[in-house]
Structure formats: C-alpha cells, structure tokens
C-alpha cells in the first residue's frame, strides 16, 4: 500500500504546480489539505450565488469515453470547473440521455489518483512490491528518451522490437492520430497491436466467415418485432448501452406491437429478467441452441423464402434425420443450406439441444417458433456466446438465424456501418517511406503475437494475450520497448500474473494512461494522457445504425495537470525519429491540426445537422448523414438514390458492397474458411466434412474444476476506471456484483455442499492459480456455474480499487479460439472452497 501511496502522492515540482490550471491542480498537488480552493464559495456567499446558478456556465459539446459507443455529451463548466455532464440532444446515439457511467466523467476529471505529470522510474527492479520510485521529468526530456531509444533500435536493424499496444480505437482513428503509420514508417510489425482478441473478435470472425464482413453489425431495433439475444447483455454491457436502453423504452413501452425479447445468458441478470423469455444456458453451448432453433425453423417451414429460397416443388421437405438432394432446393441469397442440413442440422433437434444446453426442449421449440414466425427479427450475439474454444462456430450458428429469417440488410434487421466523409490527413504516410521502411529487417519479421502466422493464429486480427508468453520464450523474438495506450494487459489477459506481468519486467515500458494501473507500476516512463474532457479527438462511430457518423471530442477545460493528449505525445516522439518518419510527424503538427484536416471533408458533404467545417463540427459535437444506403426488401436489394431505396442492385453489386463472400451470398458453408482449409484442419482437428460450416463442437473447458467460471462485464464498467470511483463502487449491481464489493455468485447447493454461507470468503481455484472472493449465495446462479465480474481485484489502480474484488484473470487458463484468436474468458472451470 505504501508503494501505491508513494505513486499517488507524487511530489509535484513548483513549476508544474504553477502550470496546473487553477484550483484543482492545487487540490491535487497539495494532497487536499488545508489550502483554500478558489471558486468555492462559503455558505453565506452561496445564497447569493444561488440567485443565478447558470451565469457564466459554458456547455461544451464533446463525446464520452466510458465505452466504445462514444455518446455525445454536454459538458457543463462554470468558473473553469466541470460540474455536470448530460447527453447531447443533437447526437444520434445519446439523444440527450446517458447511461450510469456517463455522468461519472465529472468525477474522473478530478480523480484524486490521477497522474500529475510525466515521470521516470529510478528503481530498476520491477515487481508488485517494488516501489518504482518515480521522479518527475520535463516532457522534452521524456520525448528525447523515447526517441533516442527507438533511433538506436532502428540503427541496429531491430525496429521490430518496438511494440505499440492499444485498447480503444477502431481503424486506429479515435486515438486522435492514425497510429498505423508509426509502425509503417518507423518499421515495426508490432506498432500497433490492438486489444480486439480480448475484446470481441469472435463475432467479427463469425460474420466474416458467413457474410464476408469483418465487422460488428449495425442494428435497426426500432423496427424489429423480435430479438433473440445470445450472450450479449443488452441491458447491462452491450454497446451502445445508452442507446440500447432508449430503444428498450421504445420497443417495450411505446412501439406497437411490443417487441418480443428472448434472452440467453448463463445467470439470471437484468437482461433476462426484463425479457419475455429467459434461457439460463450452460456456458459455451449457445451454438447448440442456435442449431436447434435453425432445425425448428426449417422443419416447421418458417424460413424466409424470399431471401433463402425454397424447394423447387414448393413443399417443405425438411424432416428430422432425413437427408435431402441438394438439387431439390433453389437457393436465393444463401449458399450451402442443404449441405449444412445433411451434414449437421438434420439431427440437431430441441431434444438433442436439451442434452447439451440443459434448456428444456419445449422451451427451445417455443422460442424457435416465436423467433421464426415474427418478422422482422434479429439474432444478436456477443461475448457470452463466442469467448469459447468453439466461439466462431457458435457465432456462425447464431448469425445463420439472421439469414434464415431474412433480416440481413432488412428494415428491422441488421447491417454494417458506413464510414464518414473525412478530409485528407495533414500528411500521407506513403510519401515518407525511406528505404529502411520499405526493405528493412522488420519486413521479414512476424508479429510478436504471431497473428497471421501459421505457427500462431493465421486468421486472427490480434493476439495481444499471447505477447507475454511469446516474449518470455523469445519466440519469435523479445521486445525491447513497449508503449501502451488505453490497455493494461498485465491485468486483463488470461494468466496475467505469470505471463504479461513477468514479460514486462524485461521490456522498457512506457504507459500513457492518466490514471495509475498495473502496467504503470511496471513502467519505466509515464507520459500521462489528458482525460477525455481535456482533449481533442475524433471518433467515427462504432457500428450503430449504419449511416455515417463522426463525433468530435472537444476539451471542456484546459488540462488540470501537466498532462498531454496521447496523440500529441506520439507526434512529438515521431517527430524525433530520424529521417522521413520525423518529417511525417512534424507535418501532422498536433491532434487539433489533424481533426481540422478531417473536417475539411464535410465541405462537400455537409451533415444533416448542418456541420460543414471544423467550427460547426465543434459546435455540434458530431457530423452525420442519414440514411444507411442499402436495404433488402423481401429478397431484393436496393440502393439509396437520394430520395428512397429505389435503385435495384445487381447480384455483383450486392457482392461488392454487402454480402462480400466468394459467392456473393450468405454462406452456411464458408468459402473464407475453405481458403484456409489445411491450416484449420491442422490447428483445430475438426473434420473435413464440417470444418467450414456452423456445427456443434463441445467447448474445451479449461482449469480442471467441477464448476463453470464466468466473468461478465458489468453495467458500471466505465472503461475499467469504475473500480476506483467510489460512487460507482457503491452501485455495483446485484446480478454481477454487490454493494461495495464485486462478489461471486454461487448457487445455494454449492454453498451448502462446501460448507460456506452468504458473505463468506471463498477460495476459487483452477489449474493455474487461486483467488479469494466474497460469496453471494444466490439462486440467480446456475448450480454448475460461478459468476464473478472482471475488472476488479486491482493491485495498482488507485486507493479505492486496492484490495477490492477479485482478479479473475489470475485463474484463467491461456486458451484462445483457433479461428478468431478470441481469448476464452468464459470457458474456465474451477473448484471452490471456504477460505
């Protein structure tokens, strides 16, 4: 605790004290004691102030940063102090509303545990119990230190040993600067490596394999009449949470007819409770349920003929257990239906699924009929269904339901996301490639995570969770320097304590978070970012409703401390790299300059809200242009012509723009997987008959215990910071936590067998370790499953997080889906005993 205290009470130099803007800096620096805080009025004075509370209040249009949705926010600032955040009413996701996390940004800005300025480590020893002995250094010295290091590496031909790891950000854009050119120009395949394989790559791959779009989906909930939600906690953790709840209010309280909701999860939570039909499933078996639903849809003739096609004679020949001639069916926008039926589906009855999922067969049949006979309908899935060894197969099976009911690109269905009309960046990376960048040794090096490599994960997008073990083994090599932006793999990857945590001890580590963290404890250099209320940053929307939307983060106040926007930090480091790399970054100039250039694209494409340049973008906080351009109507595809979806599309246009598979159709039998057939067969051991179609495969449960161990995200997961926000800690929700403490949900039968009771300390053990948790003995949990939310149990996150909750990743075995690379967070098995 003393070490953490030393970090948090970091001594501030007088110069920095004066730099820190106004009063809040004083509060932070002086340890909050005694000093008079300007801007606060005494009680007697306050009476006068109450007469005109809004005088001098400025509202800044910005965007939230507490989940990937990026809701538009109105930030209220009076006398230079932020005191309230509400949703931006002119922002299509927020519509004036916020989720519970959004409001807490006010707290995060003034978090007493923030880093106050750049620091370097003076204790060479690294470990949980080693005080880093950070000392302040000037920014220029920090930039030089990093650049010198990187220049030396490049001179030695070892630039690939630099890694840049990032969390949030898609297309690496909402970092505020495109980070891809850094690796491209400097010369490292490891700059950047994203966190998507510990996020949700399973769904991305499931969609890529079936409809050719490597992306999350956009959804038209407002027009859907039925949702079948698999392992995506729509009312607690699925994004965009705020808009989901707005849609919920509409679907359930306004819309006629009321939208039918069927929800699948491994414990009773708010989503299941609020739904019409709750299905509490055995972990890892969602795919079996989806296959049985597909079986019922086919045998009962409920599929959408206008999209899927039909038997040539117009009769339904799908009979349980009976094979069919492929020539008997005319397929329209799907490929391989009869092959899938003959090879897999014909025997996947609800009764069979009951034996796998533990859900009653009659419940499965009823749910399948509801889903199959209600149009439009959406089958939606995320991590609960796919963070398993069979994850992509589960995802493909669920996504196939969307094809069967014809909801792809349909009104009330799901589609994909269009990008914004951005202008050119201030510099083009291709113009700054020197000979080293083009032909240096790094061009022949695999990535440290073996993403895209035969020996690793050929089809994955990222493999951040395996960097630690690869580095330790020196295979393919060891990293020299690692820079982290909004990611903390030392804490958030499986078996973290023995892999990433060990690995960073032999890297030069640079962390850029404004807040303390486990990676910061291991850092050699801390270059603290501004918080999201203090910086410029653009964010093209996460897949939402398909129409293009570009949001702008605008500083509400000057940085409270001596911190700098990460984009500017990267530009400063890049500018100090020798050769044309430095020239490129000098030309970028600053994060603000970049967003000013991006905004130039709006001149020719003004947004629906009138945004046409940087100033109007800043004033409104977002640019958007409705609608989504494509729509499938009863098996015919149309393109927007300016007035309506009137322009019929040819099959080749559908293939180019929408169903991007070899066949230009939704593929139950995946050509994308067929191209990697040899590798898949070798890596997965799957049969040549079924490897490229949705099929049931028992998950490879890890850890060796007798109870499933599932670690969900909670509604209060504010990009991880929740664990150190006292207000949020007080609001942990009962379905995945408890008051003041993240608790382990355990069924009463387990508690009584093991001799503990509600509130007792329990020890949860797997083959790789053990953790202590507080038991919440509850009927919300299945008798075969322990539910304990991730994010908690931090050892260097701040004064409130310390020692609160349990660090679930310490007992998770390092195993990933061979296809997607998605870490198998929910496949663990454990034993439990009274501690």
């Amino acid at each position: 605790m003393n070490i953490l205290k030393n970090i948090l009470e970091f001594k501030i130099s007088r110069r920095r004290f004066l730099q820190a803007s106004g009063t809040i800096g004083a509060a932070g620096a002086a340890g909050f004691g005694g000093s008079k805080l300007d801007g606060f009025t005494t009680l007697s004075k306050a009476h006068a102030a109450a007469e005109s509370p809004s005088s001098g209040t400025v509202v800044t249009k910005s965007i939230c940063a507490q989940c990937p949705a990026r809701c538009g926010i109105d930030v209220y600032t009076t006398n230079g102090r932020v005191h309230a955040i509400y949703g931006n009413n002119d922002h299509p996701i927020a519509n004036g509303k916020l989720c519970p996390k959004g409001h807490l940004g006010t707290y995060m800005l003034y978090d007493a545990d923030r880093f106050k300025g750049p620091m370097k480590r003076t204790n060479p020893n690294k470990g949980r119990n080693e005080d880093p002995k950070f000392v302040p250094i000037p920014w220029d010295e920090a930039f030089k230190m990093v650049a010198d290091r990187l220049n030396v590496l490049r001179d030695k031909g070892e630039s690939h040993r630099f890694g840049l790891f990032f969390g949030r950000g898609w297309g690496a854009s909402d970092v505020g600067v495109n980070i891809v050119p850094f690796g491209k120009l400097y010369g490292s395949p490891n700059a950047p490596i994203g966190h998507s394989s510990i996020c949700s790559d399973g769904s991305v791959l499931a969609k890529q394999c079936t409809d050719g779009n490597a992306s999350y989906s956009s959804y038209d909930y407002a027009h859907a009449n039925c949702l079948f939600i698999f392992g995506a906690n729509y009312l607690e953790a699925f994004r965009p949470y705020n808009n989901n709840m707005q849609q919920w209010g509409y679907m359930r309280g306004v819309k006629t007819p009321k939208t039918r909701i069927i929800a699948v999860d491994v414990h009773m939570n708010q989503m299941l409770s609020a739904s019409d039909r709750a299905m509490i499933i055995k972990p890892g078996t969602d795919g079996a349920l989806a296959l049985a639903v597909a079986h019922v849809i086919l045998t009962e003739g409920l599929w959408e003929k206008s999209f899927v096609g039909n038997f040539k004679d117009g009769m339904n020949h799908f009979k349980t257990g009976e094979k069919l001639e492929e020539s008997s069916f005319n397929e329209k926008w799907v490929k391989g239906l009869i092959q899938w039926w003959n090879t897999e589906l014909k025997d996947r009855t609800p009764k069979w699924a009951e034996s796998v999922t533990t859900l009653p067969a009659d419940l499965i049949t009823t749910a399948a009929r509801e889903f199959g006979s209600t149009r439009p309908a959406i089958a939606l899935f995320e991590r609960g269904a796919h963070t398993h060894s069979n994850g992509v197969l589960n995802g493909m099976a669920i996504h196939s339901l969307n094809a069967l009911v014809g909801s792809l690109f349909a009104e009330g269905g799901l589609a994909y996301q269009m990008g914004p009309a951005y202008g050119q960046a201030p510099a083009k990376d291709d113009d700054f490639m020197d000979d080293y960048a083009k032909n240096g040794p790094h061009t022949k090096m695999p990535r440290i995570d073996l993403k895209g490599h035969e020996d690793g994960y050929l089809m994955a997008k990222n493999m951040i969770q395996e960097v630690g073990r690869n580095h330790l083994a020196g295979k393919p090599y060891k990293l020299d320097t690692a820079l982290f932006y909004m990611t903390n793999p030392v804490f958030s990857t499986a078996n973290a304590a023995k892999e990433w945590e060990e690995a960073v001890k032999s890297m030069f580590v640079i962390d850029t978070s404004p807040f303390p963290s486990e990676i910061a404890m291991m850092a050699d250099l801390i270059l603290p970012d501004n918080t999201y209320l203090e910086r410029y940053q653009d964010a093209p929307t996460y897949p939402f409703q398909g129409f293009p939307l570009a949001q702008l983060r605008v500083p509400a106040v000057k940085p409270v401390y001596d911190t700098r926007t990460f984009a500017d930090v990267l530009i400063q480091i890049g500018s100090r790299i020798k050769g044309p790399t430095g020239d490129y970054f000098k030309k970028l100039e600053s994060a603000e300059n970049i967003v000013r250039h991006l905004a130039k694209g709006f001149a020719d494409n003004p947004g629906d809200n009138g945004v046409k340049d940087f100033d109007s973008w800043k004033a409104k906080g977002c640019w958007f242009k409705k609608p989504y351009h494509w729509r499938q109507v009863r098996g015919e595809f149309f393109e927007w012509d300016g007035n309506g979806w009137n322009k019929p599309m040819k099959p080749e246009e559908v293939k180019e723009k929408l169903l991007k598979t070899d066949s230009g159709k939704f593929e139950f039998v995946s050509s994308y997987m067929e191209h990697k057939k040899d590798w898949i067969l070798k890596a997965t051991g799957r049969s040549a008959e079924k490897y490229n179609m949705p099929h049931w495969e028992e998950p490879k449960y890890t850890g060796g215990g007798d109870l499933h161990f599932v670690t969900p995200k909670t509604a209060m997961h504010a990009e991880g910071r929740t664990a150190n926000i006292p207000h949020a800690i007080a609001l942990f929700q009962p379905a995945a936590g408890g008051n003041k403490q993240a608790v382990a949900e355990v069924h009463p039968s387990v508690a009584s067998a093991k001799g503990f009771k509600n509130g007792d300390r329990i020890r949860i053990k797997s083959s790789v370790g053990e953790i202590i948790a507080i038991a919440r003995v509850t009927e919300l949990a299945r008798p075969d499953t322990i539910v304990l939310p991730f994010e908690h149990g931090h050892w260097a996150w701040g004064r409130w997080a310390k020692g609160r909750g349990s660090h679930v990743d310490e007992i998770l075995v390092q195993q990933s889906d061979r296809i997607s690379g998605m870490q198998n967070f929910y496949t663990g098995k454990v034993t439990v005993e009274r501690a």
Partner: protein
Amino acid sequence: MARWGMVIDLDKCTGCQACSTACQMENNRLPGENYQDVLYYTEGKQPTPVLKWFPRPCMHCEEPSCMHVCPTKATFKTEDGVVLIDWNKCIGCKYCMIACPYGVRFYTDEKPLVEPNIKDVYPGEGDLSWNPPYKGPQQDNAHGVGIQPHGVVSKCTFCYHKISKAPKGIADLSNDDAANREFVPACVRTCAPTARYFGDLDNPKSNVSRLISDKRGVRLLDHTGNKPQVYYLSGGAGPAVPSGRGGANKA
C-alpha cells in the same frame, strides 16, 4: 401554482441506475447515499429465479410524515408541492428519518459506505461536510440544495435549483422540450428508456396526469396516508394494485 410530481413507468425501467449517478453528480451525493436509489430483489429458484428492481426517489408526499414530526419545522412543503429541508433550521435529530416510511433521508455524518472516506480526500471548509472539485455552482441552504453542512439531514429536492426556475404554469418538464430542458430534474432528464416523467399533478391536461389515468398509476405504501406525489405505472392493464388517488378510493 403547480404541484410537482413524478411518474415512473416500471415497464420501461431497465434498472441501470443512471438516475442515481446523474443525481450523485448534480447534487454532490456521497457514495452510496443516493437520493435516487434502485433496489433489487431476488425470489424463486433455479431454473426459474426472479430478479426484480424498484427505482425509489423521495415521494414528496402530500402528507409528509417527516414534516409533521420535525421539531424545528426545518422540513417544509413548498407551495409547489416539494418537500424540502432548511439546513439553517435542521438540528440533525433524525426524527424525520424514522418517520419516513420510504427510507429516503440521509444524515451527514454517518460512517462512509465506501472506504477510504471521500470526505477526507476532499475535505470541506467551514460548515461544509466535504468539498468535491466537481461541485455545482448552486448552494442554497434554505432549500437543502448543494453540499450538506455538518449535522443535518438531506433528501431529494426534485432538483429544486432547476425546477424552481421553470416558467410558471408549465404542465410538464421533459428533456424533449428543448426550451425548458435545463429545468428538468437530473434523474428524469437522463433516463435513457424514458421511464421517468415529471409534471404538474394538479393540471389534468399534463402528461403526468394522462399517464396516471391511462395506465392507472399507483403509489407506494399508500395505506400509510402519506399520499406520495410519485406514481408508478406497471402492466397498463385494468387489474392493478388497489390504490386511492386524491381522496377517491373504491369505484
């Protein structure tokens, strides 16, 4: 003069607690001392357990028992129907906390729910019990608005610093009304599924009156005679929990 009241549609509430956090930040609440709380209940057994939740603000009763027991008349009802505490008069005897059937009052100097004590991190000056840097600009002790001084009881004010500035005669305060958005209580303004409505119960043409009529709004623990000005909607069907409104009981 309006008689402000709230309607909460339980068919739409997702139990997300954005009402709680919006209020926490707007009204400088201490962690866990939620003017706007959401309570959770579990019943039943696997495989068919039941999880329920109930959003619970101060009911701003027509007949507030908290007010009637207050020895110093610190708790009072405004002429627009809001129950407030004058912190200049409150002696912190907590009698009101015992008298309130809904458990929605808080005493300043309790042991903190979450350690370390946030009040030690952001210590108050003078009378103020603490002093968060994100404190709002309003401090109005006579109406119990702002940061609690030491030794007093506090409660939901329906965001009195906002609603008291609404134009006179307005029927409803809603986030959908751009001109009057700033006068909407924080919890109502932010509610993503729009489960909360706020308006004049005495105006039969207000949206809150229409909702109570259309969906047969009920009040919590109506038998206590406190007559809450917060109504709950649930189910929307004819059969409902029996509840008297405005003196009229049986049909």
